[in-house]
Each structure stands twice: as structure tokens, then as C-alpha cells.
């Protein structure tokens, strides 16, 4: 009795209520998304909303079971969960069912489970276990290797399952690393690389090289305040570039524009490197390395884009960046999704009165594109409320994670927040054309047992730790 009372008293009710509200809103929207006159009954279990109610019921039971479980089992069995999940992922890869070109389902009777959803939990737990282990510090080569292996193993298998979307989710764990000491410049540099990647796809190589060089020069000025040197380097590079251009024209060398830009910048970087090494100037050294690394990345970005990514990923990215426009082909989903959300207006069309989702103009309207129903029927005000509730929920979880005294619990909590954040941002972002189409569910809203259960378990393990933050029960 004592224990139960303590659990209920110490449970974070704000987070719990937000969770319940989000789940119920999701259910109402699934009903609206697939509503038809023939099946009006919201308890019709042949329909998705009826089934989702069953999933919700089991999710609540799972939540309660977790709350009353012993919180020691999670750190204790973290690696074992992780191992089991890896084996499951591999066997899915070998024996699973193919849905939407991804081999990521385990059929159980008439239903299917997506182990990738649960891999997120296991990975968050394993990462927490690793990073909270005695003496672990996120510095030095081997610590990064270990972290890389823990995250990389499931990602690798999931990519082999052809489920790039789910694999991408693990990238969000970089926020966990950041919180635990990953240098800020790495986070910034990663963001910068994303920018360079996008620029490479949109603009020509020469423009991108010029951009990278300009950023390097600015960094140089910021660190050293050597305006004169910065000017000399720039003029020097420009001079070499012009010389190359004249030579190329004069001798009919047919050098490409990219090469004419690349060579002077590379020369500047290598000279900078030698100069810094000789004079022991660390900033110049770092900036020169930055320049070379980024150049290398941008040179390979096109290659990665064309050789590594699937055609449909390329198309989705091109569509988003406005490079290709094909509203009836590759752009159909996003175009229809934007039409559904955009037509909602300020106040929406009213519950169950949406036409674009109900009449199937929006594909996957109860799973990946569930937010269209919110946007269409509840309008901007409704969308704003939903987005705000999700943000509030994330910030609340962040607060909970931060107040954990135990390392394991805090690291795990950041994992929970990162995973949910990436899901929500990418999912809503893709429905309104901010992010390329990536098939990952909107937490608590999208139809489907696997994802709902996975998110519930993910959240409630954290809440369970939170209950016992002042001592074990």
C-alpha cells in the first residue's frame, strides 16, 4: 500500500496528463481520417479507430505495469534488451514481411510488429548504460568508438531493412551526447555540414566552394583578428584562380569551373596547414583542417546523393528544395498534404468535416500523414494547440530528465526527449513541406500498435525513474 501511494504521489502528473491527452487526440483524429458514413460507430473494431482503441487500452496497461515495476531492472537488463532487439532486427531482416518496400515487420497472426520501434528504446537504454558506467567520459577516441557502436549497430541493420526513416531517428541521439559533453563545435559543425549538403544540391560546385572558403576566412578573422592576413590569403587565392582561368583558356585545358575554384582554395588550406604547424598556431591549424574536411564532404555530397540514396529519397529531397516539381508524381503526397492542411484555414473545417483526408486525397492519412486531419479539420488554431502540447510535453520530459539524480536515468531521459523530438519535428515538418518525406510516425497520433506501445514504454520508463528519484521503492 505504502509503495503504491508513493508511486501515485511521486508520479509526474503533468507529463502523464499530457500523454493521455495526446493519445486521445490522436485517436479522435484517426476516427476523423478514416470516417465514413457506412462505419459511424467509433467503437467499430473492424475499423482502424476501433483497433487503435484496443492498442491504446494495452498501452495504458503497459504504462501501469511499468510504473509498478522495479526500476532496477532497466539498467540491469539494458544490454540484454539491446542484444535481444539486435537479434530480432536481424531475424526480421531475414524472415520479415515487406511493407511499403521496407522489410521491417514481424507478422504475428493478422497483425505485425515493427521491431525497429522497440530498437529505439533498447538503444536509449544501452546508451544510458554505457555512458553512465563507472569511469566513462565522453572524451578520447575509444569513448566515441563505443558510443558509435551502440548507436551504429541497430542503425546499420535498419538501413539494411530499407527503413531509412527509422534509422534517421537514431541520429537524434547526438543531442544526448551533446548534453553529456560532446563539444559544441561538433554539433555546430554537423549543422554546418547539413547546410553544405543542401547547398551542394541546389547550387553549383563553384558557388559551394566559394561559400566554404568565405566561412573559413570569417572564422579566421573571428579567432585571430588578423585582417591583413585574411586579405592576403583571399587575394592570393583569387590570383591563383584567375591565373588558372587564363591558362585554361589560353592552352585550351578545358578545366571545369569547379576545379578552377577548388585548386586555389585547396592550396590556401594546405599552405595554412603547413604555416600553422611550423608556427604552432592552433586556430589556423583547426580552420585549415575544417576547410579541407568540408571541401572533401562537399565533393562527396553529390556522390552520396546520387549513389547511396535511393531514387525516391533523391526525388523527395529535390521536391522539397524546389529542384524538381512534379505535383502528380513524386510531389503528390506532399502537395496533397499541404492542400489538406492549407485548406483548413484559421479555424478549420470542423470535426469530421474534412474532405481531403476523408476522401483519400491524402495518402497514409491515418499513419504518417495523420497531422493533415488535424490541420484540415481543426485549422491553424487546432494545429497550434497540438504543436504546443507536443512542445510542452517535450520540455516537461526534459525537465524530468534533468532533475534525475542518477546518471543512467538522466541520459536515458535525454534519449527519450531526442527520439520524440525528432519524430514530431520530422513528421509534422514533412506534412507541411519543411522536411523531405520520411516515413516515420507522429508520436501518439499515428495509427499503429507498435509505435504507440514503443513510445508509451519509452516515456513511462522515464516516468518510473522519476517516481523513485528520491530513492528506490
Amino acid at each position, binding site marked *: 500500500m505504502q509503495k503504491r501511494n508513493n508511486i501515485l504521489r511521486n508520479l509526474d502528473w503533468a507529463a502523464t496528463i499530457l500523454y493521455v491527452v495526446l493519445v486521445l487526440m490522436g485517436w479522435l483524429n484517426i476516427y476523423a481520417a478514416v470516417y465514413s458514413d457506412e462505419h459511424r460507430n467509433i467503437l467499430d473494431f473492424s475499423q482502424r479507430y476501433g483497433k487503435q482503441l484496443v492498442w491504446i487500452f494495452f498501452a495504458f496497461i503497459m504504462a501501469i505495469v511499468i510504473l509498478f515495476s522495479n526500476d532496477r531492472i532497466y539498467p540491469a537488463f539494458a544490454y540484454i534488451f539491446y542484444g535481444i532487439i539486435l537479434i530480432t532486427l536481424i531475424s526480421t531482416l531475414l524472415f520479415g514481411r515487406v511493407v511499403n518496400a521496407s522489410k521491417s515487420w514481424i507478422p504475428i497472426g493478422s497483425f505485425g510488429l515493427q521491431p525497429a520501434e522497440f530498437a529505439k528504446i533498447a538503444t536509449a537504454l544501452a546508451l544510458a548504460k554505457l555512458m553512465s558506467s563507472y569511469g566513462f567520459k565522453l572524451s578520447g577516441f575509444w569513448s566515441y568508438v563505443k558510443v558509435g557502436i551502440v548507436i551504429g549497430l541497430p542503425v546499420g541493420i535498419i538501413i539494411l531493412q530499407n527503413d531509412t526513416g527509422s534509422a534517421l531517428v537514431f541520429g537524434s541521439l547526438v543531442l544526448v551526447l551533446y548534453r553529456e559533453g560532446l563539444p559544441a563545435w561538433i554539433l555546430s559543425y554537423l549543422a554546418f555540414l547539413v547546410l553544405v549538403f543542401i547547398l551542394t544540391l541546389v547550387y553549383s560546385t563553384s558557388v559551394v566552394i566559394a561559400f566554404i572558403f568565405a566561412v573559413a576566412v570569417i572564422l579566421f578573422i573571428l579567432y585571430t583578428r588578423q585582417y591583413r592576413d585574411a586579405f592576403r590569403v583571399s587575394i592570393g587565392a583569387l590570383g591563383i584562380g584567375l591565373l588558372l582561368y587564363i591558362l585554361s583558356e589560353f592552352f585550351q585545358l578545358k578545366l571545369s569551373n569547379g576545379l578552377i575554384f577548388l585548386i586555389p582554395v585547396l592550396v590556401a588550406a594546405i599552405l595554412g596547414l603547413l604555416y600553422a604547424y611550423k608556427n604552432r598556431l592552433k586556430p589556423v591549424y583547426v580552420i585549415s583542417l575544417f576547410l579541407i574536411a568540408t571541401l572533401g564532404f562537399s565533393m562527396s555530397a553529390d556522390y552520396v546523393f546520387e549513389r547511396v540514396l535511393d531514387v525516391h529519397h533523391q526525388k523527395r529531397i529535390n521536391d522539397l528544395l524546389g529542384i524538381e516539381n512534379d505535383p502528380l508524381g513524386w510531389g503528390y503526397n506532399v502537395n496533397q498534404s499541404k*492542400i*489538406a*492542411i492549407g485548406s483548413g484555414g484559421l479555424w478549420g473545417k470542423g470535426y469530421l468535416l474534412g474532405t481531403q483526408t476523408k476522401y483519400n486525397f491524402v495518402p497514409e492519412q491515418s499513419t504518417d500523414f495523420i497531422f493533415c486531419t488535424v490541420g484540415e479539420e481543426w485549422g491553424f488554431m487546432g494545429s497550434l494547440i497540438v*504543436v504546443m502540447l507536443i512542445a510542452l510535453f517535450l520540455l516537461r520530459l526534459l525537465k524530468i530528465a534533468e532533475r534525475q539524480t542518477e546518471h543512467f536515468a538522466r541520459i536515458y531521459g535525454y534519449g527519450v526527449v531526442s527520439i520524440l523530438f525528432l519524430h514530431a519535428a520530422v513528421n509534422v515538418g514533412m506534412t507541411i513541406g519543411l522536411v523531405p518525406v520520411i516515413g516515420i510516425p507522429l508520436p501518439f497520433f499515428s495509427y499503429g500498435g507498435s509505435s504507440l506501445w514503443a513510445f508509451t514504454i519509452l516515456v513511462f520508463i522515464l516516468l518510473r525513474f522519476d517516481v523513485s528519484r528520491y530513492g528506490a521503492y
Partner: protein
Amino acid sequence: MVLRAESSRRVVVSVIILLVFAAIVGKLFYIQVIDSSYKFSAANNVLRYITQYPARGLIFDRHGVPLVSNKPIFDILMVKRQVKPFDTLEFATMLELTVDQVRSAFKQATKQKGYSPRKAVVLLKQISAENFARFQEVMYKYQGFEIQPRTVRSYNSPIAAHLLGYVGEVDERHIKNNPYYQQGDYIGISGIERSYEHVLRGKKGVKIFMVDVHNRIKGSYDQGKFDTMAVPGKNITTTIDANLQEYGERLMQNKIGSIVAIEPKTGEVLAMISSPTYDPNLLVGRQRAANFRALKQDSLKPIFNRSIMALYPPGSTFKVVNALIGLQEGVVTPETRYACHGGYTVGRGVACHSHPSPTNLIQSIQVSCNTYYCHVFRNIIDKKEFGSVENGFSAWKRHVESFGFGNKLNIDLPHELKGIVPSVSFYDKYYRKGGWSSLTIISLAIGQGELSVTPLQMANLAATIANKGYYIAPHVVKSIEGDTINSVFREKHITSIDSKYFDYIIEGMDLAVNGDPGSGSTARIAALPDIRICGKTGTAQNPHGKDHSVFFAFAPKDDPKIAISVYVENAGFGATWAAPIASLMIEKYLKNTISKPWLEKYIMDANLLDRRAKAK
């Protein structure tokens, strides 16, 4: 220090989360509140407008006999995406088509403008009710087809084709000029169908449905709040006497020409026959285009409405106009006599046939003396008070035009021609200024030369004389259901001739028909035992061969009920063909019996088409 660094990292993570969500909210605000284009796209996606076609108004004759009614037909539409493979042969046989026709219809349907495999497009047009009934029974077997009920015209008896006109699909030009019309709509193309299009067409309605992504109808939009009903076209009662029209068409069979009959007091057109004619049913339904092409290629021009579009010389009938102008100008009196010995000998001269001589004005009309009118015409043009031949001619022209010649009478039918009354400048150009005189243009005295009139204008002249000096613009529509006809069809057009002078002309026209034998009356063949017809023959010389036979008349003399003009092309003397036809028409209209069945038979059996061939 470490703690502070860590808590600042928590802030950084929070800020990242909030920034990303702010970007999402910003984009949401943009597409939901600022950019309205998505609302249009959504409507385009989901709303399907189905046109409700109204039935065209019916057309009746003056006694309420239906001339034009509607019959149901069906357009078959298809949604290409939903069409499943089917038995083309069975499909074709049911609709009485060949397999090739069905295949080419499919090909064409997918080529039309705005085609989409998700939208319903017209596959086959105007399937008859019988064929459709057969198709409907098995329609469940053919997926992806829809039915659009329409109506097309149906004619109880094949008369008055030119007058009624025909209906066809609207062309690009109309669609561009008038937003009411859309591709596939019907529009009146000629005749009453055209001139009363806005009355007959009614108003299209629209039903708005919501469809899903497969274009399946899911229900009406907003409980049908924005639906509109089709308003049927208004019915029209024409001035035509169906009985008389039909009789006239029979009299004119195997002849080329025209009959126009008008009720003088009202300007109502009782019959308007253009021969050869065609069966209006030919221009309805799926064979319309082929039939139209055949009619268009016919050398006798059956589609051409001669009553208002053919230009003929008036011939001797025009003498009455010159007589009236002469009286009005005071250059001739009823007692004025001119001798005639086979013609007018001044200048190039004008020949005349043998008749008692000399004649006074009334007798000159009775015997149709050419010489007399050469004198009268020159008296008018060369009248001293005018001072010059140009002034004299202009005065004459003004008088002529007051009868409605040289201008459109503005009948309520399309394509009416205005005829030709030459002008001073025309002759100045033709001969040179000052190079012509009354003698140069003497042909005008006897209705030849540069004059051209339509049969309608001739009938209108008969009506004007019957009314002793005025006419009401001829028109073919008597009343419109729930509407009024144009008030111009009640206005009197008064000629420049005093009413009193018409009595002499009427006497002359009476004598021309009812004069004693041997007195030289030209149209005794038209006389009827108990109806006093006043008429005047004409024999119009023309460059196309044998003279046109012309006659115009009104009856009864004391209370005129019908004014008529008859042209029979290349048929010879007015008295031989035109006069008996007019006489039969008058008797048919006033008595509804025929006192000279032999004459009727003689006319109906006559085939004058070969004369034209010989003349060539």
C-alpha cells in the same frame, strides 16, 4: 562551473526544440492563414460540378399546334480509370454502333481538351432513348460509365425548317464571348432557335457533389445549399399558320423560290416558305454533321433561306411603287394617259407587250404597261422643282426606302439581307458624275436594273398597300410564355405617300386580277369566285436564266387579312406560276377549301427544276 556548463546545455537543447517548433508554427501559419491557394486546390480536388441541362422551350404555331418539341437522348460519359476491360462487340451492338466506332470514340475522348483519366468525359453523344434502354439494363456490367440525360429537338411534321432553324453544339467563339456557354452545350444556330436563343435555352442548373480521390460521388456539397435548379426554356408561339405553311411547301415542291404571307394589320408572318426545303429532323441527332454536309453541298442550296436572303429584281410589281411616288410628287394624276405602241422608244427604249392603248393610271397597272412607267419615272426624276437629276433621284430613293426597301425590315430572324436600292454615288461611280440621266436608269421604272429586294420585302409591300400607307415590321413570334415580344413589332412605319393615293393603286391591282376578259388584265388566273384578290404580276429578268415568275397580292380587298409575295425562280411569266400559287394560298388561308382543284393539281405536279438546268 561544470554544473553551470551542463545546465546551459539544457537551455541550448530547449532552445533548439523551441526554434524547430517555431519554424513549424510559422510554416503552418503561412499555408493555413496567409496563402489561400490551398483552399482552391482543395475545392478542385473534392468538388464536382454536374450541369443540369434544362429542356429548351417548345415552339407552337399561331393556333397552338406544336411545331418543335423535345425528345430525350443520353450522352454516355466515362471515367477512364474506372473502366474495366469489357466486351466491345456487345457494347457496340447494343448502341447500334460498329466496334471501330466505339474504339475511335474512346481514342477521341482521351484526346479532348482538359481530359483526365480521373474525370468523367463524354464518350458517346446523343444515344437514342431506345438504345439507351437496352444499355441501361446491362450497365452494371460496364464499370466506369455514367449517363448524362439531355434533350434534343423533335419535329412533329417536317415543315418550316428555315424558319425554325436548328440547334447544334456551341463553338469555341461563343464559349469565348459568352461565359454562359461551356463545351458541349447546345445553342440555336439559325432561324427562331438562334434569334430567340436566350428565351428558348432556359437556364442551366448545377449540382455540386463531393468526390473522393477515385472520383466517386460521396454526397452533395453542404446539403445542396449551393445547388441551382435548371430553369426550362420559355415556350414560344409563332405567328405561323402550320396548315398554310405546310400547304405552301407542297405547292412549292420541285420549284425554286419563296412564298411569304403576312397579316397586314399586325405584320405577323403567316407562312414563310423557301424552296427547296429540308426535313428539320435531319439536323438532329448523331447523323447531324453528315446530313448537314450533304445539304450544304446540294447545288439547289436547300439550307439557304430564300425568303429573307435571296435578292431578286422586283420586276413589274415595282410599278405600283413608281405610280405611288408619281402621284405623291404630282407628276402624274389618275387621269394621266400615255399611249403605248409596243414600247417606250426614247433612248435605248423599253419594249412592251400588246394591250389596249392608251391607258390611264389604273389601267396601266391592270395591264402592266411598261411605256406608262417609263413616262412616270422620267417625270419624277426630271421634275423641275428638283433642279437636277441627282436631286430627283434622291427624292425617288427616299420614297422607295420608306417602303422598307434597301434596308432590313428587322424581322426577328437572323441573316436577313437588306436588298439594294442604288444611290447617286453608285451611279456617279458607275457612269461618272453628271454622266447619267433619267433615261440611263430607265430600267428602274419597271423594277429592273440595279434594284434588288427580298421576298419578305415584296410581301411587306403588299401589306403596306393593303394598309394604305403603313406597315408593321414583319415578325414570326406572336407571344412568349411569361414574357412580352419586342415592342418594335407594334410600331407603324408610315410611308412617304399619302394614304389617299393608295386607293388608285388598289383599284389597278383589283382590275389586274378581276378585270373583264379581253380588258388586258394580267392575273385573271388568280381570281377567286368569292374572295376579291388585289394583285400584281411581275416577270423579273435576271442573269441566271429564264425570268423569275413574281406575284404579290392581298385579299380580301375591303378588309385585307393576308398579304403575300411569291417568287418562282426561272419559271417565266408571273401569271403562269406565281399568281396561281398566291391565289391558292389565299383561298387556303381564308376559306380552307380549294375551289379549283385542277389548278392545285397542276401546280403541285409541276416540276420546274429542269428549266433551271436548261437555262444554264
